């Protein structure tokens, strides 16, 4: 999209402005406060419905509705209208937006689909560059630079997706762990029923087959809930499931008794003591806790250290290698703390096994006591089980809160059993025996198998859930890992392309000084590293060694590389808001050719407060006399005064028509001074040195004319040496014309002394002044290509002069003679 016409009414500092860029580059120049940036704001508002300058940090209390329109204007009267050219569409499209309704872009509904991608790109402000953004590309820290560039790249969604996938993967880890615990608990229940300390198929099969033998069934070799009672004919003496079988429950009483046995208590106490000691040791050293907490960060940080040595987290510069060494030392300490953390997990895991074992019996007994109408005992056991579950929960993450104050060592070694636990259990046992007669061996075998069948169903269910969780875990991690790999792959290539283009642009801008310049931009985890070569002395941060001017150049080149890569011609114009000032005078021509040669199809809208720069952009052919606009004398009532007619000769004539010879003379003198100063630079001609730098037209003009004649003579000699008669004749004719023109400028011999006589133009009458004005216009024209409007300049091959050329190539004087050797 290019801008053909632009009308601004009551936006920011502008009252009313009509411009007709016709898709060409525009330069808006004028002093600070003249209203130039209001044009930038208006374009921003038209495309996005926002004004970026009024948003972001430091803009509290500033609103679009109140501060977008001109200070005295009603939002209803504030609007921007543009006629734009869309790629591939012959007819122009009108776009309009009012401050009163900033969310609505008014346009022909038929072009809505075509506009959508343009507006998407515009919302990322890929078409706007200000000095603030330049600096933020270069000097910002790694993470915020990444954020800014990723915002330009529209990659914030990528990070959101990654976070979502990490969250899902973490959840799958927790689910898997919970399922593993369920299996452990089911196995603990089987152990109690099968009266074995450690779960083993062999021991359980032996127990099952003992019961089956009692019931007259064949032994089995494979365990499973559907196998235990397979092919068993229920003996007559067996009544099916009996609600309470004291012989079976005896195992739970025994199990709990064993739990309180001296041996168990000693084992639990040993585990608990070690656990408490380790936790106490770590907690007494806050540094170790921090190291543990930072361990993952340290590992990540080590993998992200920039080649330049910059810290990937805070952006601080470190001598190369020192940060790596520093982090490695910390990581070693963190790894030692990590080993302690592993030991803590192991100890707490073993304690949880004791708890699971006790819970298996407590749950069964409390349920049986309830059925046996012994609610008091049942409640005591339920309370005990609840406390144990609470302890188990705390031990799943002991670093967080263990040992909580309520779990003193004496209680823990008894697995939180009530003080009178022995009596409670004995009383319960006695009550059950009194109420329920002793069961036959067949009944006990049957009830044991029935209980084991329940235990196996729980185990099988837990195993099925675990298998599902394993698969879910695998898929969740695969979703995450593939995404990160895809992101890294695409971004690596993208940043490589941008690095290469950025380096190419920067090398062009800085020429022979930085022929071997290269940049390395790379995505590294959450950050974006950015290093640049410093004169072949290695890669350093861009703001480490390069001057501020060079950093500005880098910012412009990086922006151009990014914007070019991302807009893909969807928006074919770019607004450079006062950024060209960042380029120092020795690189301005290169900057002009950078824009014209590297971005020939881009419409640049450039603002600057530097008149010389504005003129140079014109003399380099980047803008024409019709697209250089001057803003001046801004006031609150009228906004800026706008001079659309910035062509020197038209402005001189305006003064002449009004009889203002003095004004015309002053304008012609200052305009010529600026023009011939530029010519002297372009022709590399010698100018009289002045310590105060206050050279004037008397210094520049003769030097420029002398250089012109000198280059013309060289071109003629070269043409002769190559036997190019036609070129020679044309140059000869041009030399004659140039001589006549110059003579006309000297018609009034008193003009030779610049200090007096150029000023004396102001004393001439109109009729006397007009021939001088015409002679000077013709003289200016000698140095300018009539096709592209650019001032001629020297082209070199290394230190050797090669040609005198214009911007479009229509003028190209060969300065190299044919070798005679």
């Amino acid at each position, binding site marked *: 999209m290019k801008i053909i016409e632009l009308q601004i009414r009551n936006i920011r500092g502008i009252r009313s402005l009509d411009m007709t860029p016709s898709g060409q580059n525009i330069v808006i120049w004028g002093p600070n406060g003249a209203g130039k940036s209001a044009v930038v704001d208006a374009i921003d508002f038209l495309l996005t419905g926002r004004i970026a300058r009024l948003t972001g940090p430091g803009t509290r209390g500033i609103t679009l509705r109140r501060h977008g329109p001109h200070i005295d204007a009603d939002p209803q009267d504030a609007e921007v209208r543009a006629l734009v050219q869309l790629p591939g569409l012959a007819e122009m499209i009108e776009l309009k937006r009012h401050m009163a309704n900033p969310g609505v872009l008014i346009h022909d509904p038929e072009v809505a689909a075509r506009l959508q991608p343009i507006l998407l790109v515009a919302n990322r402000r890929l078409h706007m560059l200000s000095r603030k953004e330049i600096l933020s590309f270069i000097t910002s820290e790694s993470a915020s630079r990444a954020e800014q560039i990723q915002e330009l790249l529209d990659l914030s969604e990528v990070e959101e997706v990654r976070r979502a996938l990490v969250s899902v993967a973490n*959840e799958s880890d927790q689910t898997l762990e919970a399922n593993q615990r369920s299996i452990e608990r089911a196995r603990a229940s089987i152990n109690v029923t099968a009266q074995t300390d450690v779960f083993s198929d062999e021991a359980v099969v032996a127990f099952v087959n003992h019961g089956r033998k009692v019931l007259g069934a064949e032994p089995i070799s494979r365990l499973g809930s559907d196998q235990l009672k397979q092919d068993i004919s229920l003996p007559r003496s067996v009544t099916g499931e009996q609600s309470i079988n004291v012989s079976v429950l005896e195992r739970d009483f025994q199990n709990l008794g064993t739990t309180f046995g001296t041996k168990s208590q000693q084992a639990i106490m040993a585990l608990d003591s070690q656990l408490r000691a380790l936790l106490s040791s770590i907690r007494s050293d806050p540094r170790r806790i921090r190291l543990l907490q930072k361990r993952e960060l340290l590992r990540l940080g080590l993998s992200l250290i920039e080649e330049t040595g910059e810290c990937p987290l805070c952006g601080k510069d470190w001598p190369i290698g020192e940060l790596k060494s520093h982090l490695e030392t910390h990581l070693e300490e963190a790894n030692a703390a990590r080993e302690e953390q592993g030991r803590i997990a192991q100890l707490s895991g073993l304690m949880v096994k004791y708890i699971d074992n006790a819970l298996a019996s407590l749950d069964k007994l409390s349920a049986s006591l309830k059925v046996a109408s012994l609610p008091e005992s049942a409640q005591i056991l339920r309370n005990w089980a609840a406390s144990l579950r609470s302890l188990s929960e705390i031990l799943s993450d002991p670093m967080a809160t263990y040992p909580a104050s309520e779990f003193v060592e004496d209680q823990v070694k008894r697995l939180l059993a009530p003080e009178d636990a022995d009596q409670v259990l004995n009383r319960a046992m006695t009550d059950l025996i009194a109420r329920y007669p002793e069961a036959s061996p067949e009944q006990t075998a049957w009830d044991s198998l029935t209980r084991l069948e329940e235990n196996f169903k729980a185990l099988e269910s837990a195993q099925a859930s675990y298998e599902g969780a394993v698969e879910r875990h695998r898929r969740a991690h*695969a979703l995450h890992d593939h995404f990160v790999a895809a992101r890294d792959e695409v971004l690596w290539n993208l940043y490589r392309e941008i690095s290469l283009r950025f380096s190419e642009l920067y090398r062009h801008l800085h020429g022979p000084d930085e022929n071997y310049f290269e940049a390395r931009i790379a995505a590294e985890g959450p950050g974006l590293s950015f290093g640049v070569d410093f004169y072949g002395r290695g890669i350093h941060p861009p703001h480490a060694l390069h001057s501020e001017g060079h950093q500005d150049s880098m910012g412009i080149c990086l922006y151009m590389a990014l914007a070019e890569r991302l807009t893909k011609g969807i928006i074919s114009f770019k607004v450079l808001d006062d950024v060209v000032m960042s380029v120092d005078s020795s690189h301005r021509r290169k900057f002009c050719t950078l824009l014209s040669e590297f971005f020939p199809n881009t419409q640049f809208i450039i603002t600057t407060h530097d008149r010389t720069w504005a003129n140079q952009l014109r003399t380099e052919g980047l803008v024409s006399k019709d697209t250089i606009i001057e803003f001046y004398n801004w006031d609150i009532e009228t906004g800026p005064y706008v001079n659309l007619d910035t062509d020197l000769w038209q402005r001189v004539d305006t003064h002449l028509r009004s009889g203002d010879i003095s004004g015309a003379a002053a304008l012609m003198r200052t305009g010529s001074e600026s023009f011939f100063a530029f010519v002297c630079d372009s022709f590399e001609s010698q100018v009289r040195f002045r310590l105060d730098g206050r050279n004037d037209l008397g210094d520049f003009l003769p030097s420029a004319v002398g250089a012109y004649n000198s280059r013309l003579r060289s071109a003629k000699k070269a043409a002769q040496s190559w036997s190019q008669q036609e070129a020679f004749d044309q140059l000869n004719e041009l030399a004659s014309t140039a001589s006549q023109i110059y003579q006309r400028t000297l018609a009034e011999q008193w003009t030779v002394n610049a200090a007096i006589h150029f000023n004396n133009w102001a004393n001439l009458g109109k009729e006397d002044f007009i021939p001088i004005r015409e002679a000077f216009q013709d003289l200016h024209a000698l140095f300018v290509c009539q096709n592209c409007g650019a001032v001629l300049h020297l082209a070199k091959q290394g230190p050797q002069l090669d040609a005198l050329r214009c911007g479009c190539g229509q003028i190209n004087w060969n300065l190299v003679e044919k070798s005679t050797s």
Partner: protein
Amino acid sequence: MEQISEPDDSPLAKIFQRYLDRLNADGTIGLELVQHVAELMRSEKLTDPSEIQKALGQLERGTIEDH
């Protein structure tokens, strides 16, 4: 007339396309899940962990819908 659209080679589009290519090539992820992820991308719901959880849960129960 030349049609303009959000460029398919935008970094975001490229990452998503490469992601789907990788998931397809994995072979163990399952076509249903890959299709579901593609659907979440199109509907911009891939940034919501609960949507992905739902997809994984549906897959476990064999109830994921064809897209």
